[in-house]
C-alpha cells in the first residue's frame, strides 16, 4: 500500500506571529486559536477531528484538544518526536493512520511562546534526543544547535569554498519574502552588508544566519482524499512523504561524514512515492533553522550537486522569480519560528493560489521539509488539487 495521494491538506490556520512583548496567551490558547482557524478554513467542526498529532515537544497534548473541543471519541493520537522535522513527519504519520482507515481528519499542531516563554536552550535541555550530547558534549560548552551545526558549516566552507556571503544570500532572500507576508515578525529589509555586519554567534554562523525566537501557533488538517473533495477549499494532495534518520542520530560528531543529513534518505523516499523529480518542483518551503541548513538541504534534496549549494543560492535561484522559489513566507529566519508548521501552511497557500504578493505563478507541485535535532530529515511533496 502506498500513501501516494491518499490524503490531502484541507485546512490551515495560524495565529499572529509576534516577539516582544509576547503573545500574552498560553501556548494552549494559541494552538486552539490556530486550530479553529484551520477548521474554519476547511469548513469542519471540532467534532469532525478524529485524529490528533500534537507537537512532540509540548506543552499541548491530545488531552487538551479533546477537552477544549469536546471531541466525543478520538480514534488516533500520536507524536512524531523529530525536533524540527516533527511537523512534516506528522504529515506522513497522519497519512499512515488515515490510509489504514483508523481516522479521516487528523489535526497536526504546533505552537509556543518561543520569545516570551521558554527559550531554545531550556527547551532542548528537556528533550531525550539530547541526552547523549547532554552527557558528553554539553559540559564542553556545545549547548545549542548553532554550536552543533557551526562545525558542519566550517567543514563545508573548507571543502567546497562556500562563503559567509553565500549564507547571507539565503538570509536576505528570506527577509525579502517575509516583507511580502502580512504576518511576519521581521518588517525591515536586510542587505547582504547587514548580514555580514551581524554579530558572530558561533563562527561561521552569524546572528542573521540563525532563525527567530517568536510566539505563535500554526495548525494543519489532513483528510482522507475521498473526504477532501467536498470541503470548503480545494484539496492539496500529498503525493509523497519520507522521513530520514542519519547515521549516529544522537551525535553529529560521531557520524562518519558530519555533513550528512537525514534529508537525503527522506528525499529519496518522498520523490519515489510521488513519482516526480526535483526538476518538477515549482516551489519549496525548506526548514531554515539556520541558513547553512537550507544550503545543505538544497544539495541533499537534489536541487543541486553536493558542494554546489553556495553557487546555487548566489545565482538567485531561491528568490521569487528564480528557478526554485524557497520559503515564500520568509521562513523561520524572517517570518516566525513555528517549528516549520508555517512551512506546510505556506506550501498549501501556494498550491491553492492563495500566496498573495508572494504567489509563485502557476505553482502546481511543491515540496516542504522539516529538519531536526541531530539532523533528522522529513520531506513531503504536494500538488494542487
Amino acid at each position: 500500500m502506498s500513501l501516494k495521494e491518499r490524503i490531502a491538506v484541507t485546512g490551515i490556520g495560524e495565529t499572529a506571529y509576534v516577539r516582544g512583548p509576547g503573545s500574552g496567551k498560553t501556548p494552549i490558547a494559541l494552538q486552539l486559536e490556530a486550530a479553529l482557524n484551520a477548521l474554519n478554513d476547511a469548513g469542519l467542526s471540532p467534532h469532525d477531528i478524529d485524529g490528533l498529532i500534537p507537537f512532540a515537544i509540548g506543552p499541548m497534548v491530545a488531552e487538551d484538544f479533546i477537552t477544549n473541543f469536546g471531541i466525543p471519541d478520538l480514534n488516533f493520537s500520536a507524536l512524531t518526536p523529530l525536533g524540527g522535522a516533527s511537523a512534516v513527519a506528522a504529515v506522513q504519520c497522519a497519512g499512515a493512520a488515515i490510509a489504514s482507515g483508523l481516522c479521516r481528519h487528523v489535526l497536526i499542531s504546533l505552537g509556543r511562546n518561543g520569545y516570551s516563554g521558554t527559550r531554545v536552550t531550556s527547551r532542548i535541555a528537556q528533550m531525550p534526543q539530547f541526552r547523549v550530547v547532554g552527557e558528553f558534549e554539553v559540559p564542553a560548552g556545545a549547548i545549542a544547535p548553532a554550536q552543533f551545526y557551526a562545525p558542519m558549516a566550517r567543514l563545508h566552507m573548507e571543502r567546497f569554498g562556500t562563503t559567509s556571503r553565500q549564507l547571507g544570500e539565503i538570509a536576505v532572500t528570506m527577509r525579502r519574502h517575509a516583507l511580502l507576508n502580512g504576518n511576519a515578525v521581521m518588517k525591515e529589509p536586510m542587505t547582504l552588508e547587514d548580514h555580514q555586519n551581524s554579530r558572530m554567534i558561533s563562527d561561521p554562523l552569524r546572528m542573521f544566519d540563525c532563525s527567530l525566537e517568536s510566539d505563535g501557533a500554526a495548525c494543519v488538517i489532513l483528510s482522507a482524499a475521498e473526504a477532501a473533495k467536498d470541503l470548503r477549499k480545494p484539496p492539496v494532495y500529498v503525493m509523497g512523504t519520507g522521513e530520514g534518520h542519519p547515521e549516529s542520530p544522537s551525535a553529529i560528531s560521531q557520524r562518519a561524514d558530519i555533513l550528512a543529513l537525514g534529508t537525503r534518505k527522506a528525499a529519496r523516499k518522498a520523490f519515489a512515492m510521488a513519482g516526480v523529480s526535483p526538476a518538477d518542483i515549482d516551489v519549496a518551503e525548506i526548514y531554515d533553522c539556520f541558513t547553512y541548513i537550507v544550503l545543505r538541504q538544497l544539495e541533499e534534496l537534489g536541487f543541486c550537486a553536493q558542494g554546489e549549494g553556495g553557487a546555487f543560492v548566489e545565482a538567485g535561484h531561491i528568490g521569487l522569480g528564480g528557478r526554485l522559489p524557497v520559503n515564500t513566507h520568509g521562513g523561520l529566519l524572517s517570518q516566525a519560528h513555528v517549528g516549520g508548521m508555517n512551512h506546510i501552511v505556506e506550501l498549501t497557500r501556494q498550491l491553492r493560489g492563495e500566496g498573495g504578493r508572494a504567489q509563485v505563478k502557476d505553482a502546481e507541485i511543491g515540496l516542504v521539509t522539516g529538519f531536526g535535532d541531530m539532523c533528522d530529515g522529513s520531506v513531503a511533496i504536494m500538488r494542487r488539487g
Partner: protein
Amino acid sequence: MSGDGYLHPVPEPTPDSKPYWDGLRAGKFMVQRCTACGTLRHYPRPLCNECFSFDSEWSTLSGRGIVHSWTVCHHAFLPVFKARLPYIVAIADLEGGVRTNLELSAPAEQEIWIGMPVEIAYRVISDAVTLPVLIKARADA
C-alpha cells in the same frame, strides 16, 4: 555528580558510561570495545551495533589526534558561559579511531585549522568530575 560550586553543566554518568568518567579522573582517555567482536562503542552505550553483544572492555587511547572541524563560540546560550566567551569547541579525530567534540583550550585568536594536531588534557573540576579538553599538541607528545 556534583560540580561543587562549578556552575557549568556537568555530566551525569550512567552505569554504561561510568568507566569513561572514572578513566578521565585517573588521567586516561578510555573507549569501550566490544569483547565479542572488537568494535569500538563510542559514545559509551549498552549494545554492540555490529554483533549485538552487551559485553565490553575498556582500552586506553593515546589521546592524540587532529582537528576535524571547529567553531568559536561568541554567544553564551547559558548565562554561566558568558565569562568564558569567546571559547573554541572542536571535533577531533583521535588515534584509535574515535571522535570527540570538546572545548579546545586555546586563545580565541589562536589559528585553528582542519588537521591541526591536538591532544586530550584533563581539567579537574572537583573530586568527582574531570572533564576532557583538547589542547594544541605539545611538541614532545
